[in-house]
């Protein structure tokens, strides 16, 4: 198990020496996962609010479907997105296959149910009096949505962190849709998979630790943000 220690040392060397290959993978990871998060938040927050705020026939069934999508296998998403954006697929002309935007599309699909389900839970758990208060102070429908999301911001932040973690650490979509192209679509996770295949366990561990460090940095900045918006 010496490779664990080797990996730790190597992780520090890679980061300190600004290893270009590692930084290219970090950039690819951050780019695709951030773009995916932006899309899934824009589409997921209103949907989560709607699902959590309103009572309607079939809500329970819909919640079950969304909750099931939380365990969406990444390889399945990768497969479906691949089928859509490959040259023969219906969206083939967009040229998304083996690109970072292509990975981001798949990762957004992965993150969307996480954002929807956790936002719905956060909104559902808000005091019933919140809605009465906002409306009695003159909020229209849009202001009601925005103010409720703002009140539920800590729960929604948790939703964002969870989704970000899932997106940043997935390997199935990045590998299938991105193709693991060096200097282009090679992300941290696909790089780790490759190094492991090559038997370079220490490098794999090093990259894994770098990924963990990025996750740590993201969480630290979010908890800083959380203190700011109190």
């Amino acid at each position, binding site marked *: 198990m010496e490779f664990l220690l080797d990996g730790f040392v190597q992780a520090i060397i890679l980061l300190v020496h600004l290893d270009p290959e590692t930084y290219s993978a970090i950039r690819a990871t951050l780019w695709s996962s951030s773009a995916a998060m932006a899309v899934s938040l824009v589409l997921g927050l209103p949907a989560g609010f709607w699902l959590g705020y309103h009572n309607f026939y079939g809500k329970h069934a819909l919640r079950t479907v969304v909750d099931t999508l939380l365990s969406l296998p990444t390889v399945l998403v990768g497969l479906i997105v691949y089928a859509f954006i490959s040259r023969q697929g219906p969206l083939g002309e967009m040229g998304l296959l083996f690109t970072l935007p292509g990975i981001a599309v798949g990762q957004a699909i992965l993150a969307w149910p996480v954002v929807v389900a956790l936002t719905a839970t956060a909104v559902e758990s808000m005091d019933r*009096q*919140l809605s009465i208060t906002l*409306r*009695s*102070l003159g909020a*229209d429908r849009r202001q009601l949505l925005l*103010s409720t999301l703002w009140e539920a911001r800590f729960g929604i932040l948790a939703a964002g962190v969870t989704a970000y973690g899932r997106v940043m650490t997935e390997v199935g979509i990045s590998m299938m849709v991105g193709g693991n192209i060096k200097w282009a679509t090679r992300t941290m996770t696909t790089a780790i998979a490759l190094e492991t295949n090559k038997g370079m366990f220490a490098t794999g561990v090093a990259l894994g630790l770098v990924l963990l460090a990025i996750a740590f940095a993201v969480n630290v900045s979010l908890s800083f943000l959380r203190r700011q918006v109190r």
Partner: protein
Amino acid sequence: MSSGKPPIFRIEALQQHYGGRRALFVPHLEIAPGAIVGLMGPNGSGKSTLLRLLGFIEKPSSGLIHFKGRTAAPFDPRIRSRVTLLPQDPYLMNRSVFDNVAYGIKLRGAGSDSVQRVHRALAAVGLAPAQFARRPWFALSGGEAQRVALAARLALEPEVLLMDEPTASVDAESAERIRRAALAARDQWGTTLIVASHDWSWLFEVCDAVWHLYAGTVFPAGTRTFFPGPWEQAGEGAWRRRLADGQWLIAPAGTDPSAPAYIESQKLILSRAPMVEGSRVVLKGTVLRQALIRRTGKVVVTVGIGELTLTAVLAPETLRNEGMAPGDGIFVTYAPEDVSWIDSS
């Protein structure tokens, strides 16, 4: 409630159902602008439902509410921030006291005087702006939180202020501040006040009219005592109900033995000695409390009999002559034919 001006609210055939159960039915009611209307009634009688409907927080199952002569519905721009409700457990948003009070003004598009308005509203409820404006929402006592919530409504200078038990869970000082601030709004801006309360000083000292609610039915004007069912046969044409202390209520036979009945307070006769008068019903109870109805000069007296609390309205001289004080034993006499049934269909 005729004051010459057109009513600020006119309710027609208003019904609200929750899960198939009728929570409220108001055939027709009008409220004059600038009036102070008290709503009294036990928990679950429909007070909060009526307030939420008048506050356009929820849609009625059927019927109409006209606001200043025109039908209005939730999210109607005409009523937004003109009609505001202070719920029983007000919610303070996770932000400072200032931002809580300023929220409604900002929604409307803050004017240049918004800071002054927030400070004025805080001062009106007895909270010094310098001391409270920057406090976070969690650094307030229950009474202070209630007053901040009221200040948020007052900052809107509303035409209608609906309050649901505004003084139920606050100390005496907060209760007095809330009462004064609401009355000042009426004096300053002609705000119509509609208040659900168990607080007698609200209902009998402040309100122009008190509506009694029971089992989802509104009884405008006058106080009443309600006799809940179930009833049983007591000879021909009469029903009776046994009270916890073994005494019997008698009422003319109705249609539904589980229905509640009521008697108007003026129909109850209170005396220190039992009255024996033909077919009248005489019950023995204890005087619980008394309050002056400021606008009529009469006195409300409640009497505990078994599990019931009866409300009678007496002239002050009767009270003096009979010498009734809380704790005294008292006889309540009424004629069974004065008991009416609530149609719960």
